[in-house]
């Protein structure tokens, strides 16, 4: 099988999984809507009003779209950061990049950005700026002459993350202490139905971020050989790293702006596919995009059904899955890379 055919099979299979999860997610929920009614509404045959319509088309569907976008974006961002740092543990939340993005978004919110389409662009821009600031800070703290030592990078990420979450608490306490509870909840990461205009912005910005990373998948493979090796093979290593960093930061900032800092998706999904499909970024990045969407959607569907009629934050579930994966990786891979 040629590599192109293999990629087509993998993407086709994952797309089928994603569609299946999405259909399943549409059919379940706290409000009892018969499957028949759900299918009718999706096909545009349902009644023009009523509670079922509100539940399926205004609550479940936009939430599913948001979860798929966020999961795909986070997984691609994770794959990007891992290739960039050549560190299997690199991930937006562990690197503190999500924390920076969250700070940016909170700054935007307290300065009055709301729910409109233009506001959505503004929120994403602030999230992106925060993500870039945090990413640069982590890089400057962790880099040494020899490159980016694995453990130093992780510690720098943790510290930067703590710094930004403290900054958020201070900012909210000063500006609007009533909102502190809501912000702490948001920091756990939870998917909510997003209005159509915002969803369009979310999709477009995510597409740009994915393009920045996916477009350089082949060069990223060469970067894995080491910077010098990549340069010898004609790769502009510095330009490549800048582009990947911007792409991953953009994806992280956007996800944080629209659903909050959901952790560990960028760790679990690329790792799983690296084990299943190998390290080729040309396969890994598109697989992470589709698989990440399916994974976060499945997690969010669980989050809104297991304790119904209440709800869990999906970030709590992804952390439950992610923490063991992180520990396992830390004990196995990193130990081998760096004694």
């Amino acid at each position: 099988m040629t590599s192109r055919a293999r990629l087509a099979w993998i993407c086709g299979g994952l797309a089928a999984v994603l569609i299946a999860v999405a259909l399943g997610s549409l059919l379940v929920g706290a409000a009892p809507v018969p499957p028949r009614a759900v299918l009718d509404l999706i096909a545009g045959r349902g009644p023009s009003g009523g509670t079922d319509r509100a539940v399926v088309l205004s609550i479940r569907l936009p939430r599913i779209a948001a979860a798929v976008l966020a999961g795909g974006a986070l997984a691609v961002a994770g794959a990007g950061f891992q290739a960039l740092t050549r560190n299997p543990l690199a991930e937006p939340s562990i690197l503190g990049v999500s924390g920076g993005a969250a700070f940016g978004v909170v700054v935007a919110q307290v300065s009055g950005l709301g729910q409109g389409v233009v506001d959505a662009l503004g929120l994403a821009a602030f999230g992106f700026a925060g993500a870039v600031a945090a990413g640069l800070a982590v890089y400057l703290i962790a880099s040494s002459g020899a490159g980016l030592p694995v453990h130093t990078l992780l510690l720098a990420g943790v510290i930067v993350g703590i710094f930004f979450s403290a900054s958020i608490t201070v900012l909210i306490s000063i500006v609007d202490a009533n909102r502190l509870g809501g912000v702490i909840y948001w920091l756990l990461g939870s998917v909510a139905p997003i209005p159509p205009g915002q969803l369009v912005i979310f999709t477009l910005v995510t597409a740009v971020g994915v393009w920045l990373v996916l477009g350089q998948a082949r060069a990223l493979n060469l970067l894995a050989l080491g910077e010098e090796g990549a340069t010898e093979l004609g790769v502009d290593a510095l330009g490549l790293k800048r582009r990947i960093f911007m792409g991953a930061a953009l994806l992280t900032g956007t996800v944080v702006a629209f659903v909050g800092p959901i952790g560990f998706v960028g760790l679990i999904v690329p790792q799983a596919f690296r084990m299943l499909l190998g390290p080729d970024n040309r396969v890994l990045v598109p697989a992470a995009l589709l698989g990440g969407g399916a994974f976060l959607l499945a997690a969010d569907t669980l989050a809104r059904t297991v304790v119904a009629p209440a709800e869990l934050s999906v970030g709590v579930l992804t952390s439950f899955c992610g923490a063991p994966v992180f520990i396992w990786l830390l004990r196995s891979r990193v130990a081998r890379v760096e004694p």
Partner: protein
Amino acid sequence: MTSLITALALVALLPVSSWGLEVVDQVGRTLTLPAPPQRIVSLVPSTTEVLYAIGAQDLLVGVTDFCDYPPEARRKPHVGDMLSPNLETLVTLKPDLVVATREGNRKETFDQLDRLGIPVYLVDPITVRDVLKLITDLGELTHHREGARAVTHDLERRIAAVRDRVAGRPRPRVLYVLWPEPLIVPGRGALVTELITLAGGDSVTADLGQGYPRLSLEAAVGHKPEVIILARHGSRGGATVREQWQRLESMPAVKSGRLYTADGDLMHRYGPRMVVGLETLARLIHPEAFGQSEAARRGAAR
């Protein structure tokens, strides 16, 4: 003659000395107070409102950052927020009594005040009846019985008036949204649940859970509310939350324009303004009982 004066003086002193034995707070703890309280710090916004309403505001020497009603209350010295009041500031105010609540304040705060020898009077109102009792008790405690009686009479009269207005009318299904994200609603035993019942509505979340449970948006919509009331907290965010619900336009309540916002402080604070909250709810749930036109009703709700 001298002995008579001595005897009279003794009699006059008796009630004062009995203070040390008499004060039982709202959760049944006995406090030992050397004298009637003259310097009170309130860690509960609703208690601050009660003290002002009964005319005991001069005894109030400190309040929390959340004590914003009546507006004059903001000018009292602040001791910080409800969860982490600044103990040093509190002690410098030399209070002889601190009023606190188990719901909004922390046990650590009471323990610290105990160690400092400052008596803590705990309030724990849950129902409308509890609020009336709280007002009476605070009147006793501060020797403002008349003021307290006037307030409770007014409340009882207005509650009865609302009850008469809505009596016998069909009871619409009401969804009250206390907080939008995460979605928090009033459950069993919440003051708002009782106010909605008194205002002639059926809260769809009345049996959901104790106090103020979390609920998914989908489950809330699935209860098919006929009237939706969004609590507004302060001046911020009300419009945004309203827009979010407005998008669920195929819901009957939204379609028929029965989506309202109302000042949350009137519904959640266990103080005298709860009757304003009750009247607001009744007007929103039964506009026809108050002879309001559709336009006036919508205008008033915003």
